[in-house]
């Protein structure tokens, strides 16, 4: 009886004390975002996705399962064994300058983007439909249409970005400040916020939202701030630029990933044993291995003593700290490792963004970012073995050492609210779904 009473007390306390629910969003106000990083262009390559997708949109988007879904497109049809695709466009979409989106406005933008990877691609436009063709095949066109590089954006006479996203660019001071205003005619509904101001290179944590970088300058996070942390979405790895495979293998056995993740990254990530994080593939554990200093020493002793340099980006203090730590691990097994803030070392410390739930696309991006020439060819998310085999081939080449998968972390002021899409592994924040108290 006492047990029941206690149990009921626990349950009823939990039920009555928690505020379970969701207050409806309110319109109006400005969201101030402080970012420690800077960028000098508003194109998809330079701008972090968390900001870019507020203005620019693609024909497709990746859902939480990594499956392409229509966005500016309303659908697509695969024809001729994937060599031809019929893409229909969503009706009633307007660019920020008021122009209606149709195949005539989309085709030239898309063609220029696809030409970079498919030289023979051709697009026939007609009304709200386009036919995209390539004799060499476009097996993964829907996934390509979700890539920001194929975004349907253009620039006007003043070089300002014109997209179809929920916010339009109000003012832009390159590298310093970006002001966005709600786009009232946005096809998906006007954002709740009236405007959004992004301060770049900011060391303050006084905005409504601020990033918490792994590297210095460290922010002093206010006690009232809430912390938002993504799923691991950035790969930190060492890539060989001509170092002997045995040396890479010895170093891989010497490195202890624990302190890198727990101390240097302050547990904002997980140790990496593969290019893609476990939450994305489900198989990363197959590559897991513990440090083996004995075996590493054996390999080092069989090598002729050579001076090896590990280089890292000069502006990245986190990478510097990691390089220092790796040099210690290397020294423990008799390997002399010099660290250097340039890109000329035989070993290079690289950070690659994997901000997608599409494992196949993330693997291609990672291989590209790491500069691996033999990029994985046929990858199919519905056949995880193809991804596993491709990763295994890359890892067994002894040209790279995955170190950590890092999270992205933001602080949010108490007046900030947002609708969480409820995905188990969030990759990024969506400021267009934020609202603020007055």
């Amino acid at each position, binding site marked *: 009886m006492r047990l029941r009473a206690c149990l009921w007390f626990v*349950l009823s306390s939990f039920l009555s004390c928690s505020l379970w629910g*969701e*207050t*409806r969003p309110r319109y109006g106000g400005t969201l101030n975002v402080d970012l420690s990083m800077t960028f000098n262009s508003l194109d998809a390559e330079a701008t972090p996705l968390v900001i870019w997708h507020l203005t620019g949109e693609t024909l497709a988007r990746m859902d939480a399962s990594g499956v392409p879904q229509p966005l500016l497109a309303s659908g697509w049809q695969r024809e001729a064994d994937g060599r031809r695709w019929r893409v229909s466009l969503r009706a009633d979409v307007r660019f920020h300058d008021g122009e209606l989106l149709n195949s005539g406005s989309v085709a030239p933008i898309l063609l220029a983007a696809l030409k970079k990877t498919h030289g023979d691609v051709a697009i026939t436009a007609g009304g709200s439909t386009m036919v995209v063709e390539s004799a060499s095949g476009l097996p993964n066109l829907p996934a390509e249409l979700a890539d920001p590089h194929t975004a349907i954006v253009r620039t006007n006479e003043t070089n300002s970005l014109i997209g179809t996203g929920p916010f339009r660019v109000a003012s832009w001071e390159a590298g310093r400040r970006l002001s966005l205003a709600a786009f009232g005619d946005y096809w998906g509904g006007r954002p709740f916020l009236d405007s959004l101001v992004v301060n770049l290179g900011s060391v303050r944590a006084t905005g409504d939202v601020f990033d918490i970088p792994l590297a210095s300058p460290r922010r002093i996070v206010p006690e009232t701030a809430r912390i938002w942390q993504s799923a691991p979405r950035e790969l930190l790895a060492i890539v060989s630029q001509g170092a002997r495979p045995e040396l890479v293998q010895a170093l891989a056995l010497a490195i202890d990933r624990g302190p890198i993740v727990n101390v240097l990254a302050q547990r904002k990530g997980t140790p990496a044993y593969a290019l893609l994080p476990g939450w994305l593939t*489900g198989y990363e554990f197959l590559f897991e291995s513990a440090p083996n200093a004995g075996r590493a020493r054996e390999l080092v002793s069989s090598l002729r003593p050579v001076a090896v340099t590990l280089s890292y980006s000069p502006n990245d203090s986190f990478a510097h700290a990691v390089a220092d730590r790796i040099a210690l691990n290397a020294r423990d097994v008799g390997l002399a490792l010099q660290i250097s803030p340039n890109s000329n070392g035989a070993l290079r410390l690289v950070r690659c963004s994997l901000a997608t739930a599409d494992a196949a696309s993330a693997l291609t991006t990672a291989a590209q970012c790491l500069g691996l020439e033999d990029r994985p060819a046929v990858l199919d998310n519905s056949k995880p073995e193809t991804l596993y085999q491709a990763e295994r081939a890359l890892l067994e080449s002894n040209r790279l050492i995955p170190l950590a998968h890092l999270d992205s972390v933001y602080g949010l002021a108490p007046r900030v609210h947002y609708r969480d899409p409820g995905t188990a592994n969030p990759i990024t924040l969506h400021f267009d779904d934020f609202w603020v108290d007055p």
Partner: protein
Amino acid sequence: MFPMLRAGFALLFGLGMLVRIQAQPLPEAVPAMARSISSLLPRRATVSLEFQALAPVAPVEWSSFQGALRDELRKSGVDLKDTGQSEYQIRIVVSENPRGLLLIAEVVSNDTRQVVMAPWGRLSAVGAKLGLRIQMTPITEQTEPILDVWMSDSGLDLLVLTPAKVIAMHLTDGKWTPNGQASLPVARPIPRDPRGRLQAVSGSLGVYLPGTTCTGQVGPRPIFSCEAVNSHWSMGTFEPTQVRWVTDRNVLETDSVGGSFYTAAMGWFASANGKVVNREGEVQGTHNWGSDLAAIANTCGSAESKIVIVAGAGDTNQQDQVQAFSPPPEPPAAVSAPVVLPGPVTALWPAERTAQATLVIRNSITGNYEASRLSLVCTQ
């Protein structure tokens, strides 16, 4: 006390785990997995099996999978042995990725290591319904937002309002099946917190969306004509208020009260500033109320008795709740335990029947919009 606390939290955790139930039972994956493993082994190979669960799977289901796999492998001629007595060591792991569960078999022999994988279904949710005094009767669910539903007097025809159309459904063999639909040529983009109301008034149907009003005829295959105006409509069965939407917003306004609001019930307004107010000011005791209120007849009280059903407040959009409160003019007092919902309330309207309210939630696991009817059950 601490073991009790642990037991309590274990129970809560267990309730949470209920929502992670696999759509297809795991044992159904056995034949394909066994075939893949067998294809890597020579005939009459001696094999030891090791199982590991890296994803949340019900212990009974996992155990059943293990037994079935052993049986299937034996049938295909594999000789199962203990670890250390076999040529092949096989580790079977159930893991997960954004697409669902992933079964992995790692087959090791001497220096060779082969891996086979089998994706298995998609995680789906079974919403926990904790019916206490408020009874929740599910009607329909879909991926597209449900803004409101309207049911005919016979209870056999249903209209579902979505941001772009009205779907007609008919009850056949206890299931609602689509019977037709009518597009709504909306004048403005629907706000990103989509809201709308579907009302029948003397034989004709009114659809009220922010920036657009449509009218049509009641019937299984409705046709609507729309215009770019915010017409007035009647909010609430008891002490109704004439309200209209605000274009491009998720709020309402009325001539009788200043300011915009989300919903109103019996003179209480859930205002856009987050407070529940009446004509005199803020209603005390409503600080943790959400944005949605609906008054219904209290079938457990006197003939004139009513209650107000209130959605929860806060930012916790993984769950929400509805709870019944006593109506004005007295200060509100809870008259039911809260019913916990597996996702945020996206609509709460009085229904055509005075003793019911329409509830729509967005299930935080499946992402589906689920429409239900709320009514009261007398527990005393």
